[in-house]
C-alpha cells in the first residue's frame, strides 16, 4: 500500500486529500481512494468504492431506504446533498470537518456503526412488511386515474389510427405474404418491458437468438415481435395457438394478459402517433381486451393459473422467510 499526501483532489469536495493505493490481489489491479475522509465520513461510505460502511449497499439505494424508513430527518445517518458550486463544496466540507473534530473531542472515538445499522434494518423490515398494503392502495388509485382521463374518440379517427394494428387478427390465419415474420401484441401495461417479451418468446422457442427485435409501446399498449425468419415465426405461431380459436391468442406475462396475432404488411412505429393518439389507442386496446374476453372465460382462467403459480412460489418463499427472519 502506498500513501500520497495531497495526491489528488477529492471527487466530491475538490480539496486535496491523502490518497492510498493498494492491490487487493498480488499482481492484480490497483485500487485507490477517490474521496476524502471527511466526505466519506459524512456519507458513511468507503473512500474507495463508495458503498455504505454498515450495510454494504450503494448510496442511492441506502438513501432511498432511509427515506422509506422515515429516517431522512433527524436520523442517525444524514443524507448529505452535494452542492453544485465548487466554492460551496469546499465550504461545506470545511464545516463538516470542524463538526467532526468537535465531535471527536467531545466523545472520543465512537464505533456504534453496527447498532445503527441494526436499528435501520429493523425499521426497514417494517417498511418491507407494510409495502404490500401500500402497493395495493396505489393500484386502486391508478385505476381511478385511468378512468378519469377519458378522451373522446370519433369513429373516423379510430379507423385511421388502427389501419396497421390488426386487433381482430389471429395466429391461425397464416398471412400469404412471405415477407411477414412479425407478431403484433396488445394489452401490455406500463411495466411490461421489451426484454421480458423477448425472454418469453425466446424461452418458448428454446433460443433467445431467434428473435430479431422487440418493441413495446406502453402508452398505446401495443407492440411487435420480429423473428429472424419466416419459419421461426410459423413455428412460434404453431406453439402458441389454440385450436378453434379465431381471436388473437392470449398469454399471461407477470400477471398481465397479452394477446398476440400475426402483424400486417406494414409495421407502424410508436412515434407515428402523437401522445393523445397513443392514449386513444391504449383505451381502444382495453376495450378490445374486454370484448375478446367476453367470448370465453379464458382470460380469468389464464390469469388465475399464473397467479396460482406465483402464489406457490411465494408460499415457498414465505416458508423460507419464516424460518430465516424470525
Amino acid at each position, binding site marked *: 500500500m502506498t500513501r500520497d499526501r495531497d495526491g489528488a483532489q477529492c*471527487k*466530491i469536495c475538490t480539496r486535496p486529500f491523502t490518497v492510498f493505493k493498494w492491490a*487487493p*490481489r498480488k499482481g*492484480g*489491479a490497483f485500487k485507490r481512494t*477517490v474521496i476524502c*475522509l471527511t466526505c*466519506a*465520513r459524512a456519507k*458513511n461510505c468507503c473512500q*474507495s*468504492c*463508495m*458503498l455504505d*460502511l*454498515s*450495510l*454494504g*449497499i*450503494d448510496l*442511492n*439505494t441506502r438513501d*432511498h*431506504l432511509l427515506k*422509506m424508513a422515515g429516517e431522512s430527518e433527524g436520523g442517525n445517518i444524514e443524507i448529505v446533498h*452535494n452542492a453544485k458550486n465548487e466554492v460551496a463544496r469546499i465550504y461545506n466540507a470545511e464545516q463538516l470537518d470542524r463538526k467532526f473534530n468537535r465531535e471527536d473531542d467531545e466523545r472520543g*472515538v465512537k*464505533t456504534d*456503526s*453496527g447498532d445503527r445499522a*441494526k436499528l435501520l*434494518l429493523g425499521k*426497514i*423490515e417494517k*417498511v*418491507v412488511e407494510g*409495502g404490500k398494503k401500500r402497493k395495493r392502495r396505489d393500484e386502486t388509485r391508478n385505476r381511478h386515474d385511468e378512468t378519469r382521463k377519458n378522451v373522446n374518440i370519433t369513429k373516423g379517427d379510430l379507423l385511421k389510427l388502427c389501419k396497421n394494428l390488426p386487433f381482430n387478427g389471429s395466429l391461425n390465419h397464416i398471412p400469404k405474404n412471405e415477407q411477414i415474420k412479425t407478431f403484433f401484441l396488445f394489452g401490455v401495461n*406500463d*411495466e411490461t*418491458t*421489451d*426484454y421480458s417479451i*423477448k425472454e418469453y418468446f425466446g424461452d418458448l422457442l428454446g433460443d433467445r*437468438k431467434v428473435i*430479431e*427485435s*422487440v*418493441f413495446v*409501446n*406502453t*402508452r398505446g399498449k401495443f407492440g*411487435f415481435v420480429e423473428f429472424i425468419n419466416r419459419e421461426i415465426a410459423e413455428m412460434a405461431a404453431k406453439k402458441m395457438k389454440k385450436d378453434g380459436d379465431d381471436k388473437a391468442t392470449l398469454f399471461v406475462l407477470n400477471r398481465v394478459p397479452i394477446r398476440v396475432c400475426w402483424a400486417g404488411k406494414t*409495421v407502424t*412505429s*410508436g*412515434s407515428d402517433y402523437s401522445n393523445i393518439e397513443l392514449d386513444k389507442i391504449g383505451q381502444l386496446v382495453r376495450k378490445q381486451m374486454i370484448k375478446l374476453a367476453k367470448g370465453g372465460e379464458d382470460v380469468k382462467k389464464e390469469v388465475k393459473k399464473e397467479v396460482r403459480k406465483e402464489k406457490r412460489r411465494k408460499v415457498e418463499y414465505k416458508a423460507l422467510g419464516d424460518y*430465516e*427472519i*424470525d
Partner: protein
Amino acid sequence: MKPARLQLDPSTINDSSKPEQTGQIFNVWYSKWTGGETNGRAGLVHAKTRCHVTKDSGYTKADRHVKPGGLNRDKYFCVYFARGCCCNGKRCEYLHRIPTEMDQLPPTVDCFGREKYMDYREDMSGVGSFNKVNRTLYIGRINSMDGNIELKLGKSFGEFGDIERIRIVKSKKIAFITYRLENQAQFAKEAMYGQGLGEDENETLNIRWANEDPDPNARKRKREEEDRAGIESAKRLLKELAAERASEVSEEVSEVEDEHEDEPTEVSTATPRPAIMPKPIISTDSLGLLLKLKEKRKVLREEREKSKGLELGYSSEDE
C-alpha cells in the same frame, strides 16, 4: 464456451496506423493528438471497427478469476473489445463478453474500470456520474426515421444488453434507450458510438447519457422501480442478517432459551450483541479504526514537534 476471437490482427498495426493528425502533439500513452485549436478532438467520425457480440465474445485470461455463474466484483470489461478492436483475443486481461446482473462492480467506476466523476460533463458525454444510476442513453444523428425505427434500434442495440424500453422523438431524429442494467448501458454506449444502425456506413450515431425523463408517467415508473429495488436489497440484507443470527444461535446452544424470548423485540431495540452485519466487503468498524489512526497520528505529530531537532524529514517510527 469458446475462446475470445481476435478482433484485429496485431500484424496489421504499424507506425503508420496512428490516427490522423488532429492536434500538435501525439500522446503515445493515449494514442491521441493533443494541443492545437480543437485540442486534438476530431469530432464525430464513423468508427472503423465494430463489436459483433455473438461472433467475438469468449473466454479470456480474466475469466480464470470469475467462476461461471458466480459474482464478479473486480474484473472489468475490455473497452477495446466493445469498440471491436482488441488485438489480444483470448490473451486479454479483461472480459470479452457483455455485462450481466452477476457483474457487480463498485459504483465509482464504469464496467470498463474507468473512474466516474461527481457530475456529468456539460454535453453528457464521457464516463458519467457516480451520483446517479443512469440506464438510459441518448441516441442522436439518426439518418432516417422511416419504417419501424424502434425495431431497427432494438436490433442494433439489443445485441449489447436487455432493452427495457425505447422512446423516439421523430421530429428531432433522436431516440432514448433504457437498458435493464447500468453496466449494459455503459457497454452499449462505448460499442455503438460512431456506428450506424444495421451496420450502415453512412450513418454515424452520437451517443450520450440521457437526462431525466420529464414525462410524469416515466417519473412515476422510476419511483416505483426505486421502491422495488430498495425493498429488494432490504430483503437481501434482512436475509443475510437472519442467516448470521441463525449461525450465532447454533453456536450458543446453551442460551437458546433466552434467545427465544429476546428475538421478537430484538430488531427494534438495539441489544448489545455484536456482529450483526451482513459480512461484507468492509468491516463495520473500519471508520472507527481510521479515526483511531488519526488520533494516533496526532499524538505522534505532537511528539515529533517536541523532538524537532532530531527530525530528518523521514523517520521510520512515526509512520
